[in-house]
């Protein structure tokens, strides 16, 4: 059983993204990478400095970047495009709709600095609606890996699948919650801790917080199952059904707006299958502000502590 005590700090998922991009790009010469002047922040530069001929830093042009990726994919290339999640999804959305989702093209979108944990830069750079936007693009796989190992695996899986993929990368260093060789498939969640009193569904940074919460709950005699729901679309409905039958209560924790994120899709799936009470840990219906990442997560209520409180609320409703 994974416990929070055993967690070590690993790489930021954006750094793992760059490393994985270099690995898959070394093996597959059809992979091309485009960035919009944030290559050092997104770590796409890790690929770019080794393969300059397959790397295009086109400047501050997110919409154009998506359009170019559409043309490259139409001519048989596998473009990985990256920027901050807030910019690529918000400024490139129409282009993703017309140039990737509608024609079902093999475009891989990496939105870095997702959530509020980018910190000091403030609201303009904090992506808190990217999951909702990406999920509204038909055919897109939408994935938020929780640590460096699953991020590397997700990049490899994205390169191997023929179709559009959205990956959210994070800015801060992230706790390692999985083994290096962890089995990873889009749409197949990973149970990181078993328990039968309730289930905590989380992704990204919140998986580590969920494990810490499970430790705290265990001290109170409550055994929480923790599931890393890295893929929001397609959702692992089978794991949810099992958890609903076996634990009968849920907390969904994510670094995103309340509407349209992991919480929404989990609730949709449960209501269509085996309904159970759900409590949510997320940003709510608002924006955050500048500050240190940990201070922001504390102030806006996305920590182990708020997960424990949500667990106690949902157990009272069981």
């Amino acid at each position, binding site marked *: 059983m994974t416990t929070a005590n055993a967690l070590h700090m690993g790489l930021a998922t954006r750094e793992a993204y760059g490393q994985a991009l270099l690995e898959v790009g070394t093996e597959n010469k059809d992979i*091309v990478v485009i960035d919009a002047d944030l290559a050092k922040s997104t770590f796409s530069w890790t690929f770019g400095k080794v393969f300059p001929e397959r790397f295009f830093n086109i400047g501050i042009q997110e919409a154009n970047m998506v359009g170019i990726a559409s043309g490259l994919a139409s001519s048989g290339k596998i473009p990985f495009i990256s920027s901050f999640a807030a910019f690529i999804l918000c400024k490139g959305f129409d282009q993703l709709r017309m140039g990737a989702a509608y024609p079902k093209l093999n475009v891989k979108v990496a939105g870095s600095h997702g959530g509020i944990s980018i910190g000091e830069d403030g609201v303009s750079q904090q992506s808190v609606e990217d999951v909702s936007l990406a999920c509204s693009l038909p055919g897109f796989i939408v994935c938020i890996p929780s640590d460096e190992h699953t991020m590397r695996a997700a990049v490899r899986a994205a390169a191997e699948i023929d179709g559009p993929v959205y990956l959210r990368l994070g800015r801060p260093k992230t706790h390692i919650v999985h083994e290096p060789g962890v089995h990873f498939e889009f749409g197949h969640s990973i149970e990181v801790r078993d328990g039968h009193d309730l289930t905590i569904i989380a992704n990204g940074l919140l998986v580590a917080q969920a494990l810490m919460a499970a430790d705290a709950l265990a001290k109170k005699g409550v055994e929480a199952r923790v599931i890393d729901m890295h893929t929001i679309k397609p959702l692992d409905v089978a794991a949810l059904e099992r958890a609903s039958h076996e634990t009968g209560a849920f907390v969904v924790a994510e670094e995103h707006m309340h509407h349209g994120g992991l919480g929404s899709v989990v609730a949709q799936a449960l209501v269509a299958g085996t309904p159970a009470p759900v409590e949510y840990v997320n940003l709510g219906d608002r924006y955050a502000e500048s500050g240190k990442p940990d201070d922001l997560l504390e102030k806006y209520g996305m920590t182990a502590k708020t997960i424990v409180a949500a667990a106690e609320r949902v157990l009272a409703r069981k």
Partner: protein
Amino acid sequence: DRFILSKGHGVPALYAALAEAGYFPTSELMQLRQVNSRMQGHPVQGLTPGIEASTGSLGQGLSVGVGHALAARLDGKAFRTYVLLGDGECQEGQVWEAAMTAGNYELGSLTAIVDSNRYQLDGAVEDINSLTPLDAKFESFGWRVIGVDGHDVGAVRVALHQAKESHDVPVCIIAHTTKGKGITFMENNNEFHGKSPSSDQLQVALSQLAE
């Protein structure tokens, strides 16, 4: 070669050309904008043979063309990429993002054609948000610009040939056209922008075009 109709609303003409070229039966043309048809109201990549980009949300086709031209360069392939834009469409900022990129990457295999008919939905381009001088704008982004009478097929062929011979920089052909050309009641009449003629008007128009 690749052809991208960035001004996707012009797709009926493209469907007709593709049908004449044998991409699908001409009988299918009459299904335009009907349910269960491949003749969608705007171009759809992957649905209609010969359509190479989904367009209709203006301003996006030139970026897609840049992607094709980069792919050709990476693979050492000789195909050329042609993108047809509207003049009003050039008000979209993304057109200039793509123009800047194509110029800086010296994409000699990319040719843009601007159908300069001087009108957009709400009126004259010049009145709404002028693009003048359009040629100097493209030139300043590193393009070679060729102006032609868009109704003179011979002149258009010469311009396309010149574009094909240009390997160092992208070429923009500005095709000066008249909306409703050859039909007295339609020429430069913006009421027919996006509107079909009545059956009576159609008969008159067809007879005038036949003359």
